[in-house]
Structures are given as structure tokens and as C-alpha cells.
């Protein structure tokens, strides 16, 4: 079979070549619970084809990706099924054969390039490791690879260490390493998650070209539908360890059959903010506690008793498009449009004024000449890529970074540089929400203690502490019984809600949100943005929203300040800046962001005045 297929792929790529990867009924279980982490996985990827695997955290997509390298994470094992790469079955290979397989037949590009590349080795050594042969041929191939991933190929560059490269360059080195041995299959596990949009665009382009040049099959794992839609030929949507929908990219986007796919699509923020972001309530169940029947039924607006009792089988709707749903293709109930953002009123009194702020770490200047004023009740977005100084600016405002000069006034009073030197009242008025909710909540305190700790610190003793906690939880759309939980018992989205509840409990004037959605799934991100917009309308909160995501800015902010290399290069209302960007940097940011447009029919705007149920 392989003898016949091999010449076919080289001579006539248009005919259907033998698949490079076949996964047949794969099941992986956790030890010792023996709960299935992924099951009934059927896949085929052909040479030169990119399969996008999409799902929220906990859906088992990384477990699947690692299984393709014949690798199981600790406390997991394969419990049935077959994986073929080319015509080689992975199960039962000796460790020697597995070592030959990895890096030659199958390669892997992990999420964080910084941790995938050995920081102690020069680029030259790193790349040569993947190749064998004489010095001359190896170096020739190394330079060729570098040119292919659009990096310089001179000796100077080859002598560098990974820390002397930017994140995007590091990721391209990882790509070069992965393609070095001309593998049959390449597994990419969210390789652009940590990168800026413009870098992400370059890396995606590189991946696409390399796959075509080498006619290499690729499995691209991501939680970001927008990225996958741009890159993949086919999409497999995973939920709770199963592939719930799979088909050609255009087909899945235009005619998604599974309600989960449809909700995932709706969760992607729209670059033009023509439709609202809609989150998916709840979160993916853990392998230990999956519901009976269809795993998505608890979160599905269409589910009925049949869905809750039986697992839907895989059915083919059109050739090559499979779905696991009893309600396949049914229309989802329409989404309610939230009221449009209030337009910016320049007549209002500014709450927070920053004038001539300069900040740095040690000798290096990070921020220069920052002037910004924030009106009461409005949301100002600070937009910038990593290293633009946006987090430093936020920390200066919060009193967490005291190495700055310039003026900072809150309702007319000057603010001290360090939070310890500010008055209790000033500390109460400014609240800071951190990027990573896995870091910002002390794991040894219950949610109630976490909220009360901050309340006691900035408001002193409160008489009705339980009422304060419950009110804060309700504001953040959490249940009263969440008060007794520890952060470990909450999902990422719930943790970030706790962080929001904790800030709201102090009744702040200004809420600083530092990339609060970037560590979370797209579906969770949407529900957090919904929450913040609601709170802003309801409580008149003033928000400073820091992000690198343009689409988010358009969905939440009235004013935007674009930061580049420590300076504000463009500042104005959101409509103004995005309709007519003046600075080339803003233009380039907008161009490199994937503009993900929903197919017609998935979202029909409903006038806000109408009855929301109809």
C-alpha cells in the first residue's frame, strides 16, 4: 500500500494521497480513576493538510496531540484504538523506535517557545541537533531552513542564544527545528498563544507555507476559533474528550451543525463590534464528572431528556462533515443584543489624570511622557503589544511600581507613588485586577476570606460582612455557595469572577483590568466582557482596560490609547481611532488581527426594545 502511495504523492499531488495520520477509535484514560479523558477519536489527515483541533480547556485536545507523538502524560494511558503515522502503528513500539519516530516522522511545536528551546545552546547547535550527515550538508540545510522561516541565515545570527531573540523569532526557530527532518506529521499545540498579533500573523503564514512546501500533515491545536478558521483546511471541534463536529473549515463555519460549535463561533469577539460577544455559561466538565448522555447537554439551549440520557452517535450530514448531536442543524435561540455603549461625553469631570509620567526599571525607561485622563463612568482601553509598557502604566496607577516621575491625580488629589503611602480612601478608590487568576488569589483562603480581607483593608470593619460578600458575589454572577470554596475548586473563569467580586466589594471608583481575559478561554472571555459591560452600565464604574486584543477594545471601550514602546502613539474615541487610524502602528495592528466574520444566519441582531425571549 505504501509502495503505491509514495510515488503518487511525489508525482501527482492532486490525486488523493494516502493519509499521513490515521487515528482509529482512540481512547485514553486517567489512572487510577480509569475515567476516559478522550474517547472514540477518529481522524485522518492527509499530507499537506492542516487539521485544526478546537475546544475549551479540559476538552482533551492536548492529550490527543501528545498521543500522536506516542506520549502520554503522567497518570494517563492509552486504553484502546490505533494511531498510524504513515503506515507505522504507534502502539507497541520499542522506546528506541519511539525516539526515532519523534523528531523525524512526527514533530511537536509546543505553546511556549521559550521553554521548548534550550537556553544554554546557541541557535546553530540547537538546529544541528535535529539533523544528521556531514558538517557541510548539515550547515547547508540549517541555512536553508532559516531562510524558509524568514530569519537571517548569517553566522552572526547562528551564534546567538535563544534569549537574544524575540518571542516570534524563537517560535520560528522552533518551527524550523520541527521541519528540519522533513516529518510526515507535525503537531502544533497553541504555538501562537503567547505572541502578539503581528507576530502571530507572521508565524501562521510561516506554518502554512512550510506545510505546503514539505507536504506535511499538521494538527493545529487551539482554543481560538479565529486563528483556526484562518489557518486550517479542516476543523475538528472537541468537547469533553470527543470530537463533536468535524468537517472542512468553510463547511463547519458556514453550516455548523453542533450547538457547541455555534456557541464557540459566537464567543469570538467581532473586530468591527457589529455583534455582541456571547459567552458559553458554565465550563467543560472534568473527566471525572462528565454528565451522562451528551456531555454538552447541561450547557446546551436545545437539550432535552433524550440528550441527557443517550450519547449521540457520529452522523454524517454531508460528505466529510460529521457531527455528534441529536439536534444537529437546529437553529439556536437568538441572542439578546446588549444596549450599545454610551458614547463619550467630554464634558464630564475626569476621575483620573496622568500627566507627564515617565517610568522605568533600573536604568531602562519603559514609559515616556504619558498623558491620559479618564472620565467618570467611561472605559479607557490601553492597547499595545507585549513590551509596550501597558502593564507598567497600570501598576504605576495602582501604586505597585513606584519607580516613576510625573503627576498622578485622583479626583483632584495627587496620588503617592507607593500604595503603602496612599490613604486608605485612595486605595479603596482604585482597584486592580490581575491578568492571571491562577496567581492572584491566595490558594489558602476561601472566597469569603479573600473578599473580606480586601474589604477590611480598605473600608475597615464592616458591620454586615456576610451581606457585603453576598452582594459582591451576586455582582460578579457567582452563586452564594461559592463563598466557602477555595480557589483550587474553581475554574479559571470563576476565579477571575472572584477577583472581580473582590474588587467590587470595596466599591471602587476606578477598576484597572490588566489583560484579565488573556489567560482564559474565548468562551469565558466573552462572558467576562458581558459581565464588565453590564457592571459599567449598572454601577457607573470607570474602567481602565488593558489588552492586546483589538476586537476586545471595540467591544468594551469608549476611548482607546494605543501604546508603542512606552509612548501613546494614538489616542481618541474608539470609533474615531478605528474608523480612521492615523499612526502607522495602529494601522499595522489592525491589519494583522484576524478579522473573523461569522457566516450569515448564525447571528441575527434583535432590536433591544423587543421582548428578549421572542
Amino acid at each position: 500500500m505504501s509502495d503505491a502511495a509514495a510515488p503518487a504523492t511525489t508525482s501527482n499531488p492532486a490525486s488523493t494521497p494516502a493519509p499521513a495520520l490515521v487515528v482509529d477509535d482512540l481512547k485514553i484514560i486517567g489512572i487510577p480513576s480509569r475515567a476516559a479523558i478522550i474517547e472514540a477519536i477518529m481522524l485522518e489527515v492527509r499530507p499537506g493538510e492542516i487539521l485544526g483541533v478546537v475546544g475549551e480547556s479540559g476538552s482533551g485536545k492536548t492529550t490527543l496531540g501528545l498521543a500522536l507523538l506516542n506520549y502520554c502524560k503522567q497518570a494517563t494511558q492509552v486504553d484502546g484504538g490505533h494511531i498510524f503515522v504513515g503506515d507505522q502503528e504507534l502502539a507497541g513500539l520499542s522506546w528506541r523506535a519511539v525516539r526515532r519516530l519523534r523528531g523525524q516522522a512526527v514533530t511537536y511545536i509546543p505553546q511556549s517557545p521559550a521553554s521548548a528551546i534550550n537556553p544554554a545552546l546557541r541557535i546553530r547547535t540547537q538546529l544541528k541537533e535535529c539533523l544528521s550527515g556531514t558538517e557541510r550538508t548539515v550547515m547547508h540545510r540549517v541555512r536553508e531552513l532559516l531562510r524558509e522561516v524568514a530569519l537571517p541565515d548569517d553566522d552572526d545570527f547562528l551564534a546567538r542564544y535563544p534569549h537574544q531573540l524575540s518571542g516570534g523569532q524563537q517560535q520560528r526557530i522552533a518551527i524550523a527545528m520541527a521541519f528540519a527532518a522533513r516529518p510526515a506529521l507535525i503537531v502544533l499545540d497553541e504555538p501562537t498563544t503567547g505572541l502578539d498579533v503581528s507576530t502571530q500573523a507572521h508565524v501562521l503564514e510561516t506554518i502554512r507555507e512550510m506545510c505546503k512546501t514539505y507536504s506535511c500533515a499538521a494538527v493545529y491545536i487551539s482554543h481560538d476559533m479565529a486563528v483556526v478558521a484562518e489557518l486550517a483546511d479542516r476543523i475538528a471541534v472537541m468537547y469533553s474528550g470527543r470530537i463533536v463536529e468535524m468537517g472542512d473549515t468553510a463547511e463547519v463555519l458556514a453550516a455548523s451543525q453542533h450547538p457547541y460549535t455555534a456557541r464557540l463561533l459566537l464567543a469570538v469577539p467581532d473586530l468591527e463590534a457589529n455583534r455582541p460577544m456571547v459567552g458559553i455559561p458554565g465550563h467543560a466538565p472534568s473527566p471525572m464528572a462528565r454528565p451522562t448522555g451528551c456531555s454538552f447537554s447541561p450547557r446546551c439551549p436545545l437539550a432535552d431528556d433524550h440528550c441527557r440520557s443517550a450519547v449521540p452517535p457520529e452522523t454524517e450530514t454531508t460528505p466529510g462533515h460529521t457531527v455528534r448531536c441529536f439536534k444537529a442543524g437546529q437553529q439556536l435561540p437568538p441572542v439578546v443584543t446588549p444596549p450599545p455603549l454610551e458614547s463619550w461625553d467630554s464634558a464630564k469631570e475626569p476621575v483620573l489624570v496622568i500627566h507627564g509620567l515617565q517610568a522605568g526599571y533600573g536604568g531602562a525607561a519603559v514609559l515616556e511622557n504619558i498623558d491620559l485622563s479618564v472620565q467618570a463612568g467611561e472605559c479607557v482601553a490601553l492597547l499595545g503589544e507585549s513590551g509596550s509598557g501597558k502593564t507598567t502604566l497600570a501598576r504605576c496607577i495602582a501604586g505597585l511600581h513606584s519607580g516613576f516621575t510625573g503627576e498622578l491625580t485622583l479626583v483632584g488629589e495627587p496620588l503617592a507613588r507607593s500604595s503603602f503611602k496612599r490613604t486608605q480612601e485612595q486605595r479603596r478608590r482604585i482597584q486592580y485586577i490581575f491578568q492571571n487568576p491562577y496567581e492572584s488569589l491566595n490558594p489558602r483562603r476561601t472566597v469569603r476570606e479573600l473578599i473580606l480581607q480586601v474589604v477590611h483593608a480598605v473600608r475597615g470593619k464592616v458591620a454586615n460582612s456576610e451581606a457585603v460578600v453576598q452582594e459582591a458575589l451576586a455582582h460578579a454572577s457567582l452563586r452564594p455557595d461559592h463563598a466557602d470554596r477555595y480557589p483550587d475548586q474553581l475554574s479559571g473563569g470563576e476565579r477571575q469572577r472572584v477577583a472581580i467580586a473582590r474588587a467590587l466589594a470595596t466599591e471602587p471608583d476606578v477598576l484597572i483590568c490588566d489583560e484579565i481575559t488573556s489567560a482564559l478561554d474565548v468562551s469565558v472571555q466573552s462572558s467576562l466582557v458581558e459581565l464588565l459591560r453590564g457592571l459599567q452600565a449598572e454601577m457607573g464604574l470607570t474602567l481602565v482596560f488593558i489588552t492586546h486584543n483589538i476586537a476586545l477594545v471595540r467591544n468594551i471601550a469608549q476611548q482607546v490609547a494605543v501604546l508603542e514602546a512606552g509612548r501613546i502613539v494614538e489616542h481618541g474615541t474608539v470609533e474615531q481611532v478605528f474608523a480612521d487610524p492615523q499612526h502607522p502602528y495602529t494601522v499595522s495592528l489592525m491589519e494583522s488581527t484576524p478579522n473573523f466574520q461569522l457566516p450569515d444566519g448564525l447571528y441575527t441582531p434583535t432590536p433591544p426594545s423587543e421582548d428578549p425571549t421572542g
Partner: protein
Amino acid sequence: MSTTRPETVQDDNKPAKQPTLLRRALRTTTTKVGMVLTLIVLITAFAGPLLSPHSPTEFVGAPYASAGTSGVFGTDNLGRDVFSRFLHGGWTLMMLAIAATAIGVGLGALVGVVAAYVRGWVDEMLMRGGDVALAFPQIVLALLFLSIIGPKLWLLVLMVAVGHLPRTARVVRGAAVSVVERDFVKAAEAVGIARWRIVLGEIVPNITGTLAVEFGLRLTYSIGLVAGLSFLGLGQQPPAADWGLMINENRIALTVQPWAVALPVLAIAILTVGTNLVTDGLARASVGSDKGVEQ
């Protein structure tokens, strides 16, 4: 992106609470064995005085009478009952060792956490001072002061504790440095919580695993040190019953009356092995304990 993060289901009203460190450690057999060994010796030491057939200083027979003829395990160099002295002799050793460990690990942890949190020259001073102290072997330092000032029990406890302090401080500083960098400490600073409260409320609770392991390890060393110093005559003084002292008093007649030496030696050995196994189990359990963060 993790795919195996244990997540609680939304409608689950009683989420699985993380079991305590000790409970997780007790899942392994070695910890269980260690716990049993430690408890045997601890019960002997603390309940012993109540069960002993004679007073530890009462003369019950001829010196070095063999086992069975006079008392269960015979008599010692002065004709006192070996078994009674054994039952009385563990109590002080235990108390001294536990007190020395508590003081040493307590102060050491404080120094370590403060150094990690304050950083700068305070950190440098504390840690370099610790390096100087570490240059002295623990037993030599104790011997020096005990032989100058005299064999006082408080001094013995103090010297063992002082020996532990820089060692503990160094380990705890290492564990605390990574906790200090985490955002919840900054979150506490942003709302202006007092620094000492941040140390006690935010940092210390997140290094309990390290502290438990360090306490167990230092306790093992303390038992050996206190027993060793007693053996050298720098601890409990005659006629008091003490395991270390018993070994010293009766070692010349090891072939005639082995029990007077063997009993305390066995007890100390079992205790040391036992606490070591428990500590080992704790260390293993605590490696997986701070699972709050993935990414």
C-alpha cells in the same frame, strides 16, 4: 493550556476539598510504617513514667544483674532497674529535641521569609550571616558553648536550635521567594495590607509543605544531637534517667548486660528512622501540594 486540571462540576454542591498534607502523605506505605515506628517510641517515652515498675533511682539488685534475675531487663551499673530507667529516660530527650526543633525551625523560617520578602541588603546580610554560621559543624558549635558555660539544659536546647536556624532559613527563603513573586502578594500590597500581615497571612500559609518537611528533618537531627550531647555528659546529669546518659554509663559492661545499652540505642534508632520516613512521605506529598498554579 491544561487538559487535565481537576475541575469541579458546576452543580456539585460538595466539591472535593483538598486533603491535608499529612493525609496525603499517609497514602504511602512508608509514611504509615514511619508513623507507627514514631508513635511506638513516643508512647513509650511519654506514657513510660506511668508504667514503670520501679523508681528510676531505686536500687533493686546487684549491679549488672542479667535480664530475668532482677527485673525484666536486669540492672545497670549501680543496680537500678534498667526497664524503669528506660521508661523514664525518653521523656526529657523528646522534650528537649522538640523544643530545640520548634525554636530553630520557627526562628529560621521567620528569618527566611523576611529575607525573601524584603530582599535587598537585609536579605544579603541575613543570608551571608547564615553562611558564616553554616561554616561551623553543628555539634562542634554546641560542644564549644556547652563546655565553656557548662551543661545546662536551656543552653543545650538553644545551641541545637541555633544550629538549625541558618539551615532552615536558607531552605525556607528558597521556597518563599517564588511565593513572594506571585500576584496575590501584590494584590495584598495594592490594598495596603500591613507587611507583617502579608508575611503571616499570604506567604507563610503557602509554604506549609516546606515547613512541615523541614520540621521533620530537623527533628530527626535534634534527636541525634541531644542524645549525642547527653552521651558526652553535656545534657542531663546523673542520677537522672536519660537514654543518652544510660548508653554512656553502661557501655563498659556491654557484654555482661547488653540491655542497658541496647534498649535506649534501639529506641533512638527506631525514632530516627520513623521520623525520617514520615518526613520523606511529607516531602513527597508536598511536591504535589501547591497545585494552585498551572501554566
